[in-house]
């Protein structure tokens, strides 16, 4: 019995030593909690959408595990490198590549395709070993453990385009996204009518806008905007030009006006609905 007691004590003390070392001998790192699925709501601004894309790119999307400058496992995306400029900029050239067999017609479609069907086009040298660059080792980002939604993939594309410095062509997700699930108090309230939205953001302080009483002349008169908007900047449709002018006003400044006058944070304060309404309103009323 004496032997038995001794052995039991020995065993208990030894296990306690291991337990103690695990608890007090090493730092207690608290692992990251399971990722929460990002809520994409209809009332999101473009900047928020792009920022969300960045968050997904660096976090939940796990893109940077391979798309980083250290391992050389995959081409760099949000920055330039030995594979050329950032992907947002080089995508347009990719679809012209003679080896390209995918369905994408535009740069945006190309990036989208690369995310959901990585093997559609494999950059030379990054294929699975032994497949002669026909099969990509990358998982489809809309499936499996990554499982991005369509809206999230759009966010990533917008982020990649933004970081390449090219025009963001992705459309904001509309109200169909799970708006209802989003907590109401955290979201800004959207204006109900375009007039309300225009007044809310103080546009008439500087601009004359058809259909709105009173208007300043610090900024260009918006009369006839719809007809000239498409010709202002090469490559931008009227719609795109108006959106750019609201979200990043200093991208193009109309002759005779001072750059930096118009507030640059409209992209943050304006909701998607409002932006949509204002653009639609301007396209219709200023014709």
């Amino acid at each position, binding site marked *: 019995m004496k032997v038995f007691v001794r052995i039991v004590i020995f065993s208990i003390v030894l296990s306690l030593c291991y337990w103690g070392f695990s608890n007090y001998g090493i*730092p207690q790192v608290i692992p990251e909690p399971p990722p929460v699925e990002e809520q994409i709501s209809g009332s999101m601004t473009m900047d928020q959408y792009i920022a969300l894309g960045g968050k997904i790119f660096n976090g939940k999307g796990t893109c940077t595990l391979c798309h980083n400058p250290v391992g050389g496992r995959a081409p760099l995306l*949000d*920055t330039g490198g030995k594979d050329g400029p950032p992907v947002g900029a080089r995508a347009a050239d990719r679809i012209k590549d003679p080896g390209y067999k995918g369905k994408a017609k535009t740069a945006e479609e190309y990036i989208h395709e690369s995310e959901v069907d990585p093997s559609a086009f494999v950059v030379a040298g990054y294929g699975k070993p032994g497949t002669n660059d026909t099969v990509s080792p990358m998982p489809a980002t809309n499936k499996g453990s990554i499982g991005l939604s369509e809206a999230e993939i759009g966010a990533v594309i917008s982020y990649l385009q933004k970081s390449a410095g090219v025009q963001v062509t992705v459309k904001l997700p509309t109200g169909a996204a799970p708006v209802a699930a989003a907590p109401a108090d955290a979201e800004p309230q959207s204006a109900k009518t375009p007039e309300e939205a225009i007044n809310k953001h103080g546009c008439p302080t500087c601009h004359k806008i058809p259909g709105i009483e009173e208007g300043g002349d610090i900024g260009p008169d918006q009369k006839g905007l719809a007809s000239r908007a498409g010709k202002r900047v090469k490559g931008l449709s009227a719609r795109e030009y108006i959106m750019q002018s609201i979200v990043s006003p200093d991208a193009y400044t109309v002759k005779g006006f001072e750059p930096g006058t118009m507030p640059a944070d409209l992209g943050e304060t304006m909701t998607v609905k409002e932006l949509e309404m204002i653009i639609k309103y301007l396209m219709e009323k200023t014709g």
Partner: protein
Amino acid sequence: MKKLIQAVILILVFYLILKVGIPALGSFLHHGTWPVVPTALMRIYMFFVVAGVLLYLTFNEESAKELGKPIKEIYGSPEKGGLRMIVIAIIALFGGYVTYQNVKPSFEAPIELRSIHPAPPSSVEMWGKTYNLMTLTNPFRADKANYEKNAKEGGIVFFKNCFYCHGDKLDGKGHYYSGVSPLPANFVDVGTIAQLQESFLFWRIGTGGPGLPKEGAPWRSAMPIWQHFLSEEEIWKVILFLYDYTGHSPRTF
């Protein structure tokens, strides 16, 4: 008794190797520091050193008996009552001392797993512009004709702004050297700027302590956000100066 003394001497020798030998070696490799073995690690090292010594002295029957003999005598023989009391008192006092050391209030900052050269982000935003740190190079490095002039101008920037902490010899021992923690970087040392790319320095100077990523424990460093006080050109020139003065060359790969 002989074996017990042998055990104590062996443990002491290994203790000294860890306590003095490793710092001495480290000091030889890294002048001006005394890289002690951290207490947390030292405890585990010593635990296994003691275990190793005891295992060595007890695997053989006679040796084990001899090692145990003085201990048995002290606790077992009635005539050694006085000695027994002394030994028990020493053990109790030692226990008390260790407990006291552990629970006494201290002003020691909590331990942080701080990484001194954290991985830089791929791009950084300064002065409203985005810089790609992977491809960024020092524009003045290529300008061979005005190298002397630019480096000298960088020196002026250094002595106007940086030398209070980083020192006039660039050895990290400026006037306020002892007042900040972590210590100002010693640029002369081979372990700092000599191991880094110029873009890394650009990022570190431009965003300062608050701009460190999470593993670098942001706000723990007293380094200001220099983009608020210096221009892009001034930062590049001061980087040129740092390498020029210390004789190091920046890493380019």
